[in-house]
């Protein structure tokens, strides 16, 4: 399933235009601790987090994360979104909590 398909089926807002919409998503990881993400996120995994500062983009880039998914419609700074676009990281946002989003994404990916 691609980033675009995932966003479509779960009704997630896409904040970074076309960035990575065609990239494959194979798994996901939910964590707000950066070292935990660095150590444990899989390949082609979306990252669900409430962290929204610039430095998380460094982690996402390092782990080649196709998309960061922000729960609960949390506010984002424009500079953050612009930088994510530049670094080729999609930013998606949903209204559900991190727990609910994780469950929904898990089900979608399991279905293929």
């Amino acid at each position, binding site marked *: 399933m691609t980033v675009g398909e995932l966003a479509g089926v779960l009704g997630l807002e896409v904040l970074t235009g076309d960035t990575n919409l065609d990239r494959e998503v194979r798994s996901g990881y939910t964590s707000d*601790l950066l070292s935990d993400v*660095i*150590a444990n996120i899989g390949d082609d995994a979306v990252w669900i987090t409430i962290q929204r500062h610039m*430095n998380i983009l460094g982690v996402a880039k*390092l782990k080649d994360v196709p998309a960061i998914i922000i729960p609960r419609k949390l506010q984002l700074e424009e500079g953050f979104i612009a930088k994510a676009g530049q670094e080729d990281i999609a930013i998606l946002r949903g209204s559900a909590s991190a727990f609910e989003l994780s469950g929904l994404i898990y089900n979608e990916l399991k279905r293929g």
Partner: protein
Amino acid sequence: MVDSLTYTPQITLEFKIGEKDFFVAGECASRVKKTLQQLGLKQNVIKRIAIIIYEAAMNVAIHATSGMVTVHVEPDAITIRTEDVGAGIEDIDLAMKEGYSTATYEIREMGFGAGMGLSNIKQCSDDLKIESKVGVGTTLNAKVYFQDQTRQADG
């Protein structure tokens, strides 16, 4: 993908890291990752090296007043060295323990300071040496060999 380089590239990359300069840590890890991809190294070796650089650089940014990250590419291995001026580490064994952290509340709130940095580095390194003097600073040396059959599984 190669287990060793057929030539000695003599690549040394250096990055200066200032106090609370968190962004540069990600930057230098990304840049080294790109360089190593161009050399054609195995993906899992590159991943381990990138984690070491990121975590070691973050440690400098979080805990030191200034520091330097030096990455040296050899034909069969890569060495990562960080040297900083700062608080130093009182008890290295304790600092190596997963979950132990001396980071401030503000730093933890950003998702740093989980106490996993040094244990992540240890897991990714073939050799790791840390020397520290309280009130002076810390030097970390990590080495990763390009050929390592036992680690293939982590992909």
